[in-house]
């Protein structure tokens, strides 16, 4: 097959460590939740040990979208809101790559809202981490699509009144095949969610509540035990036949996931939804396999020559 590159032997046998994976020093404000997400991502890559050159880190525009500069992998800093279709091209173009996309609530839910819908619907294989801080930080405190009602910003000085997006409900309804939620102060939980997302074959999304200390301080204290809040995690069904198991969350049930997502603030954390429906990657490969079977795997030259012959 012309399009698939031959597998490349790992360039360096050395195991990937945080030291190797660190790149430019982050430009985030001191105390920003995104530092913890970055640290957790290094740990995830340490666990996964993919070939270094086959990891791609991508982002759109926003504070959190500076992410690729801070990770020493092949990286892309694309335009605002369009990182998902770009990443879809990378993922569909190259099955041998591990595609990670980072971004914020503005990039993902506002500018990129339509792409979120369709990447979910198509179930393109990649991992998408949304660092949600409920506010526009890079442009200095405007209302974001997740800003709660009443939140005062420069664009809503008397308090926002547009209903915010419920990310979990939205994501489950897009058709994304892995949907999870975490909190930047809960490092182990973040690592677990991101690792499961990375190992998932499909469009896997993790929303991480990541505080903007500059423009929305204390936004997520309600879920931070060190600030007097409660970090309540989802108990997933184990299918062990016990009576208490029936009360646990069935992650394959999208309606149950939506009900969980509708719990009052600060809600639950963990995996809301998981399914193994086929990815677009696999379906496209199937289309290719079918087409090549029909043409008896004819070579490129032969194929085009026969097309021209039909037009003589």
């Amino acid at each position: 097959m012309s399009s698939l590159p031959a597998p490349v032997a790992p360039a360096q046998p050395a195991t990937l460590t945080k030291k190797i994976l660190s790149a430019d020093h982050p430009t985030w404000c001191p105390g920003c939740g995104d530092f913890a997400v970055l640290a957790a991502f290094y740990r995830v890559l340490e666990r996964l040990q993919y070939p270094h050159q086959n990891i791609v880190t991508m982002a759109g525009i926003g504070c959190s979208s500076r992410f690729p500069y801070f990770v020493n992998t092949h990286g892309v800093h694309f335009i605002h809101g369009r990182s998902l279709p770009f990443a879809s091209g990378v993922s569909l173009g190259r099955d041998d790559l591990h595609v990670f996309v980072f971004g914020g609530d503005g990039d993902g839910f506002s500018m990129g809202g339509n792409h979120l819908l369709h990447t979910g619907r198509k179930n393109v294989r990649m991992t998408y981490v949304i660092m949600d801080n409920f506010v526009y930080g890079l442009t200095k405190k405007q209302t974001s699509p997740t800003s709660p009602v009443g939140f005062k910003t420069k664009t809503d000085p008397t308090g926002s009144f547009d209903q915010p997006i419920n990310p979990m409900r939205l994501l489950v309804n897009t058709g994304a095949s892995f949907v999870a939620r975490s909190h930047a102060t809960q490092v182990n939980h973040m690592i677990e969610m991101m690792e499961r997302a990375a190992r998932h074959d499909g469009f896997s999304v993790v929303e991480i509540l990541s505080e903007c200390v500059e423009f929305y301080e204390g936004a997520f204290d309600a879920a931070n035990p060190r600030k007097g809040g409660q970090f309540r995690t989802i108990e997933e069904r184990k299918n062990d036949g016990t009576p208490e198991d029936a009360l646990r969350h069935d992650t394959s049930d999208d309606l149950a996931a939506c009900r969980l997502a509708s719990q009052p603030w600060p809600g639950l954390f963990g995996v809301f939804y998981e399914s193994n429906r086929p990815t677009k990657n696999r379906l496209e490969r199937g289309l290719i396999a079918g087409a090549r079977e029909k043409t008896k795997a004819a070579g490129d030259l032969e194929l085009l020559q026969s097309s021209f012959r039909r037009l003589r």
Partner: protein
Amino acid sequence: MVLPVPPPTPGVDPTISTPRRPVEDAVIRLAGNSQDGIQTIGGFLARLAGRTDQDVMTYMTIPSTISGGPSIFQVRMGSGEILSSGDQADFLVAFYQHSYDEHIESLRPGGVLIYDSGHVVPNPDDRRFKAVGIPITGATVEAVGGSSKEKGKNLFVLGLIARIFNLDVAKIAGLISERFGGKSEDIVRNAMLAFDAGYATPADNLADCLCRFEAGAKRSETGGPRVSMDGNLALSYGLIAAGVRYGAGYPITPWSAIMETLRSELPKYGGIFVQAEDELSAVSHALGFAYSGHLAVTGSSGPGLSLKMEALGWAVMAEIPLIVINVQRGGPSTGMPTNVEQSDLMQAIYGSHGDAPRVVLAPKDVEDCFLIALEAGRIARKYSTPVIILTDQALATRIEAFHEPDLTKLMVDPKPDLSPRGTDYEPYPLDRLTRHAPPGAPIATGKYPSVSGLEHDELGHPSGNPEMHMKMTAKRREKIKALGASLPVPEVHGDQKGDVLVVGWGSTWGPIREAVGQLRAAGATAGQLHLRNLHPLPPGLREIFLRYKDVLVVEMNDEGLYGYGQLAMLLRARYALPSIGSITKTDGLTFRISEIVNRVTQARAAHAGANGTRT
């Protein structure tokens, strides 16, 4: 029901005693509704011409409604070299009264009007034409049988045309069975019944309009078979030959045919074409494919290109190769979606934001649609840049026959370059062309590059350094200039110096060439310069322009606020020559030869009257 008439031997028609009138070429305009399948007649005639010694060019308009509405298909075929679809029709086939009313003026005096006597009542006082009434609908229904209603009228007319021009019936029958062979036998049978009925039209009705194509000069380039296709198909195959295996698009007329072709063709080659949720996603997908190491394509028409512009700016900044196709149509906004215009040139060159130099090419005919895709691929790879191909609605839909290209020499290997990059690898070197290292390529230093839309240094790190922005802006500019300097000086057709040089770009090549021929025949010294490379421009233009009293740029766009079409404006800005003038039009139709001849003559007279001064 009439029994089908056995196809007579080509060239021998025992029922006709009068000799056929020899013609060099003929323009046949078929006017009906879009669901009548008149495009099919044109398609058959074009394919037939490709298989014989005749040359052919077609022209069509379709309404932008889903079904119904008036539609025309014009075919010019003949034994000489056919460069345009012709100014006036020699034959008009009118299916309906509105077809007659709308198009009778496109028939030249002395031309032949063939009308469906079941639908059309021509003006009996109009004696300019030879009118032939034939019960097209009735005879088709009678021939095929009642069940298929009026379907097959197009094949009846095809049979009629074959009779009038003494076309090769066996070859047409072959084309019909190829075309419908995949369907049920009944369909082929009905198609042949309708065709035969048309062919068998009583000779008395046609006696005075029967003709034959002159043997004409044998083709200069013999050797190799010829293929017939429209511009969109030629461009699609050109992309495949250029090594494009991945792409993304969003439906819009007249671009859609390219994405439909690629969606069904690319999987055979191991590739993928994505129908994206919108234009922004389409260009982003394509850039993702390109970043991952594949030569990729996206495309659209007018409004869709506007939506892609931000991402195109990123591609310039990040120096990622990409082919972008714009099948231009009448604008702005939804404009005239099924008409032709060349009004996106400035957008192609200067659209997006900031200083974002990129490459813009335009094919001159259908064959060139194929070739220009290869050129776009070569440039995109070598200079790591987006390349825009400006084709248009007229080129997209017209069918021409051309010599089958030698694919063994042209096919480009599509494999991504995943070779390890050495310790000296820099993603954005200031003194060399950027060579994108796709993911999967190991980097010897262990430092992996960021591909960035932020201004960056040589290693791809964001940089707000004013000097670095100046250097990188210059780098991106100079590589495009280097491409310009490497291009050959374009050839001038016709007189190499003298009264007037007619400059064009894109699909106007054919009519301009014929117009220049007529101007020269009328005594002017005239040359034609046609630009394929619109940005950067090729070298040597100033020297060429200086050899003529007038340099007139012919293009299908508006003269704008300052009196010059878009290319004329650029050439005046670039060369600052007062001899450069502009001929534009915005009626959504291709240039007629006579229009160009008249406008050039007027412009020359005006120039002479102004004592050689032009402001």
